[in-house]
């Protein structure tokens, strides 16, 4: 174990000083940031394109204040003015103006339910749908004029709602009643934030797991393995690599999280930190770390079978895709976090870390039995995978100049 730690220290220092690692370390979050920044840039420009629409209301019914208030409430990008121009004049006017609309609120509204609207050139394409928000106050006024009482008004304007009660809900009803307040929002945020954080940790240490892949194969390419193995055992070399790259992954994760937190604090008002450091985070991080060890063992073993990263065969390429397995499950899980597919995903070792993180972030009630089974499967898989990787690594790391075939690898495993 002492030797493994020496290797870990070496691998860590060697990479942390390496320019390409350092660039990758900071560039990835910066690229993320840049995309977000450009995204918001485009958002802004889209808004600024929609120039303020001047809306003139020819009001004969004394509804101007009500309408202006409604416009205010909906935060429409309007400038509302009163006007005395009659329709003839307006017809002339709209020919020569821009971003301007005229509404005629008069007797026709009550009798025919019609509000004539005259729009100028280059009016916002959304204007005619925006103007619909005025329907409610106008309707209310119209009904009031027809002599309905306030209660009757409320009833009519409320419309009809279809209220669904499913069998599930009947069961949960008791519990739900207490949760339907702010704490519900809180708990969703709580799980989501720490889940996302753990997801970032998982992602960055799985990426650094891929560095292991490269490192093991580079070790062969540089033919340095035999020199190292004259001092320590293959097992120690392998463990050292796994630990060293784990630490590198943690550095990557910390940098990533630092950026993510910074952005979150800047963009969102919510107190993210309060939601980040919750008890759930411990389990999430445990899952992420277990995920790392599984993939690290896989990669270090397969990396040792390859002479050159660029000449990886189909078999090795396939292994490389395994960390992305959880993506297959994302859709079904979001639809139904406790459905069959989600359950299957949690029990397949290679997708289990990602799937578990996603499910637990979405689910209110944690299926503890499933979690424990999934973790047990994961831990057993790690132990098996480490054993296999050790066997493959021992032989593979000294096989120079060619990639091992799956048949050869099978032979080493059985040896």
């Amino acid at each position: 174990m002492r030797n493994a730690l020496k290797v870990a220290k070496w691998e860590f220092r060697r990479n942390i000083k390496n320019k390409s690692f350092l660039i990758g370390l900071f560039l990835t979050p910066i690229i993320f940031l840049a995309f977000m920044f450009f995204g918001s840039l485009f958002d802004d420009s889209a808004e600024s394109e929609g120039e303020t629409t001047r809306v003139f209301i020819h009001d004969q019914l004394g509804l101007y204040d009500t309408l202006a208030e409604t416009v205010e409430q909906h935060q429409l990008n309007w400038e509302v003015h009163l006007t005395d121009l009659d329709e003839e004049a307006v017809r002339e006017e709209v020919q020569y103006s821009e971003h301007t609309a005229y509404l005629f609120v008069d007797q026709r509204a009550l009798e025919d339910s019609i509000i004539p609207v005259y729009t100028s050139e280059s009016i916002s394409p959304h204007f005619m749908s925006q103007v619909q928000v005025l329907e409610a106050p106008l309707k209310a006024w119209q009904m009031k004029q027809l002599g309905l009482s306030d209660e009757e008004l409320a009833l009519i304007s409320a419309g009809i709602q279809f209220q669904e009660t499913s069998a599930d809900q009947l069961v949960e009803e008791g519990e739900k009643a207490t949760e339907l307040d702010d704490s519900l929002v809180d708990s969703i945020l709580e799980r989501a934030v720490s889940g996302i954080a753990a997801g970032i940790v998982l992602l960055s240490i799985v990426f650094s797991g891929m560095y292991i892949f490269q490192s093991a194969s580079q070790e062969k390419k540089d033919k340095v393995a035999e020199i190292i193995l004259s001092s320590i055992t293959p097992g120690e070399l392998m463990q050292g690599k796994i630990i060293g790259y784990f630490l590198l992954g943690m550095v990557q994760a910390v940098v990533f999280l630092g950026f993510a937190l910074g952005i979150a604090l800047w963009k969102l008002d919510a107190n993210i930190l309060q939601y980040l450091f919750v008890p759930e985070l411990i389990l999430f991080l445990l899952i992420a770390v277990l995920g790392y060890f599984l993939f690290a063992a896989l990669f270090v073993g397969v990396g040792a079978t390859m002479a050159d990263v660029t000449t990886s065969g189909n078999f090795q390429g396939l292994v490389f895709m395994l960390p992305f397995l959880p993506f297959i499950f994302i859709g079904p899980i979001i639809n139904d976090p406790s459905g069959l597919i989600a359950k299957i995903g949690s029990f397949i070792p290679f997708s289990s870390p990602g799937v578990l993180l996603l499910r637990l972030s979405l689910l209110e009630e944690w299926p503890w039995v499933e979690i424990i089974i999934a973790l047990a499967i994961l831990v057993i898989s790690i132990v098996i995978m480490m054993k296999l990787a050790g066997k493959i690594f021992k032989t593979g790391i000294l096989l120079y100049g060619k990639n091992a075939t799956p048949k050869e690898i099978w032979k080493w495993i059985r040896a």
Partner: protein
Amino acid sequence: MQQTVLKVEGLNKWFKDKQVLHDISFEVYKGEIMAILGPNGAGKSTTIRNIMGIIYPDEGTVTFNNQKEIPRHKIGYLPEERGLYKNVKVMDILLYLAELKDYPLDKAKQRALHYLQKFGLEGKENASVEELSKGMGQKVQFIASVIHEPELLILDEPFSGLDPVSQEIFKEEIRSLAQKGTAILLSSHQMNLVEELADRLFMIHRGRKVIYGPMNEVKRQYANFKCTIRGTYHSARLERLPDVERVEEEEGAVVLYLSKTVQPALWLKQLPDDLVIEELTIDRISLHEIFIDIATDRNQLAEEGVVHA
């Protein structure tokens, strides 16, 4: 009595169904240079890997100072397939390899600087490994294998790819290490270098021992005299001389291979009087020639060696 540092007994190794080592046994003494010779694929590197515990023999034992457990930090090893991490500084990798051997780092640093200077790599300690030429890289690897003052140094093809100047430097260093008491096991197929360096040799062919013994004895036993004459001669007459086993003619010169029992001084007197000699040399067949003979199965020597051994 010489002190045995490394003892290899009865190594047998199979790769699949093919036996690659047949009952290999030898010893390396303190302060001597012992050479393993053999053509490519003879089993030299396999033998060495078995000693280093990188692969394990199917049968046989390897003992170090009479211990079964091989103390890795007391052994220096320069493998045949060798390289260094790229992207790292020369000093960093030397210190890392010393650290893996549990050698004190301050001492390692001193020794590294000393050796870099000795090998003409002064000021390269902060250079990146990538920047080194192949020869420089080999020198750094050599330093790495001796930095921790090993009791036993195993060098697998240390001279391959080196220019003559660097070969000389290596040769000198290997000699001086042996003089200071390091047991050295050297594998090579560059016979002239081995002939100069080695105290004893072990020749291996197709995984079997062919010759094993002190260099002088081996030469006495296997390297008969040969006489090379440049001048005007009748090869037919020379062939009829006593003790001539074989005659080979090369451009303007004739080589007479003499029998084992020949007495050179007496034999020379029997040369015909009318022989015009421009140049005449009489010496033993070199190790190189023995090696080629064995490797190409041209000589009876191979089988003979097995029988006598």
